[in-house]
């Protein structure tokens, strides 16, 4: 579902070209997105060459680039039932804001989550509240509110699958996902 979701977002924001470019960048691994459209089907051989070197990494400004640059700081964590932004969260969000300022065209969705040890409906609201905390902090750092949306999954999308304190701590989170 997340993929179809971000797909519709892309179409909505009119960045179809970017999406195509992003897909090409993965196969061509060019450091700059090619400006031309994909080749016509036919004798062209470029599409069947996914090998021109893997060392260059993700295309700057892409979600893959964001995730790689953040090195885990695309996610902030919360205490049980809490939604406040602590010092560690602030560092992570500052790093996110810096990236978002570098790519002012980029929009992002902040996905809020809760652990499994709460009731379903409350956790939906709690996830929303956590995502909103992260959003507000990013706005305070200068990211335009219009670039940020929130989305709560409550307790429905755990990342750690255990039923213990450690897993629950990992699941009480807000994840920033930039929109390619």
């Amino acid at each position, binding site marked *: 579902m997340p993929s179809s979701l971000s797909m519709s977002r892309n179409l909505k924001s009119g960045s179809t070209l970017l999406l195509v470019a992003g897909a090409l960048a993965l196969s061509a691994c060019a450091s700059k997105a090619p400006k031309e459209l994909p080749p016509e089907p036919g004798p062209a051989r470029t599409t069947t060459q996914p090998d021109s070197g893997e060392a260059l990494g993700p295309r700057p400004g892409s979600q893959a680039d964001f995730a790689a640059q953040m090195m885990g700081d695309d996610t902030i964590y919360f205490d049980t*039932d809490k939604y406040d932004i602590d010092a560690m969260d602030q560092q992570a969000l500052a790093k996110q804001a810096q990236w978002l300022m570098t790519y002012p065209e980029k929009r992002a969705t902040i996905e809020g989550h809760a652990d499994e040890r*709460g*009731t*379903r409906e409350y956790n*939906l609201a709690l996830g929303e509240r956590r995502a909103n*905390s992260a959003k507000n902090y990013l706005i305070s750092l200068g990211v335009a509110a219009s670039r940020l949306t929130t*989305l709560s999954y409550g307790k*429905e999308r755990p990342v750690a699958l255990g039923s213990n304190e450690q897993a629950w701590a990992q699941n009480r989170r807000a994840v920033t996902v930039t929109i390619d």
Partner: protein
Amino acid sequence: MKTLSALALGLLLCASGPALAQSSGTFTPEITAPTQEAQESDGLEVTVSDDSDWQDLGIAITTFTTDADVPTQTTAGTTGQLGHAISQVVASDLKNNGLFKPSGPDGLPRPTFGEVSAPNYRLWSGNGADMLVQGYVHAGNDGTLTVGCYLYDVALGQPLEKGGWKVAPSDWRRAGHKCADMVYSRLSGESPFFDSRIAYIAETGSKDHRMKRLAVMDSDGANHRYLTSGQAMALTPRYSPDYSKILYLSYLNGQPSVYAYDLTTNSQKLIFRTTNPTMAPRWSPDGKWVLFSMSQGGRTDIYRITSAGGGTPERLTNGPGINIGGSYSPDGSKIVFESDRSGSQQVYVMNADGTNQKRISFFGGRSATPEWSPRGDLIAFTHIAGNLRVAVMSPAGRNMRYLTDSWQDEAPTWSPNGRIVQFFRTQRGSGEATIWQVDLTGRNERKLPTPVGASDPAWGPIRR
């Protein structure tokens, strides 16, 4: 688009059954063939909360007989085979809910058609039966089926109650539920509840990629159907009081949003168009109002809108924090809901217009998902203190007591007569969810038969 067409297909399949019965309007008790006036006698003075005596009541449920063993359009076979199947529905309804310990129909003598209205009392008292249920099936020329159901007091040697129902072939199980309801009501003095349906969320797949689909079933788990394809996550359904619609939350648009799913037109629409997430839908008892909760800027509040659609939602709560859910008192004058304005989830009551909001839960821990009993006397809720457990309290917040004791039980829903509570239980580790029910003693607990994992049960009213 793909999602929508799949939805429509699922609906076409599911709509035919209930639609037939409701539109033809034939599901009314009628006095049928063998006549014998039911005599007034006092019902047994018992309640579910004190069931030790009447569980020992010997109720013999015999195979329903027929005037002519002819083929039917049901999956059960001929009228004779159908009679056996219907009596099995009656027996399992009464048995599975921990209300009685009935015997039969297997292993009991089979009454003749003539004996249905003139029981062999001596035979049954010799078998140790206190009560006797007999019945018959008659096939009409138009394919409809007439089912008669008779309850006798063997010790007194007299009839207690009888009923007859004309059903479409696809609805034959309802005749069994109606008969079980008749027996249950007559012997307990309580309102019926077997002939009712349950909406819930069917769950499949691993814990991190679980598919959640809207599904419905009869109160005993039969006639199960999926209503959505699973491409968009569905949560928290609620049947409308007339069974024509289901409110539920879907991620169809990306944001969690409340939809009204129309079971007669096989379509759904947003109850309120907004970019904010909407959740926790509820009906008013008369079906005229819908409550939903909407998040905005991190806050969540409860709103009221007409179920007909249109109009501006009226906000009933005004923060701070998360105010969510809401369950009307049976007379529609009050709403019990959940709020963390005090710092943690607690249960509050307000007037239906949002005035006079008062906290009623003071039990330590957190209290969530309150649901007002259709009888009005109790509020069921989830109590969180380490584990999640289902509990009940009075509408004033007194006499709190647990009904369940497990690792994670949540989201109670009441049987139409307010005597049984269903909820869902999550297994530690796997996260697998199953629907359970428990009576008000907390002693008679059982798992509902569902084809896959199941959560968020929502019990509808008794069917007319």
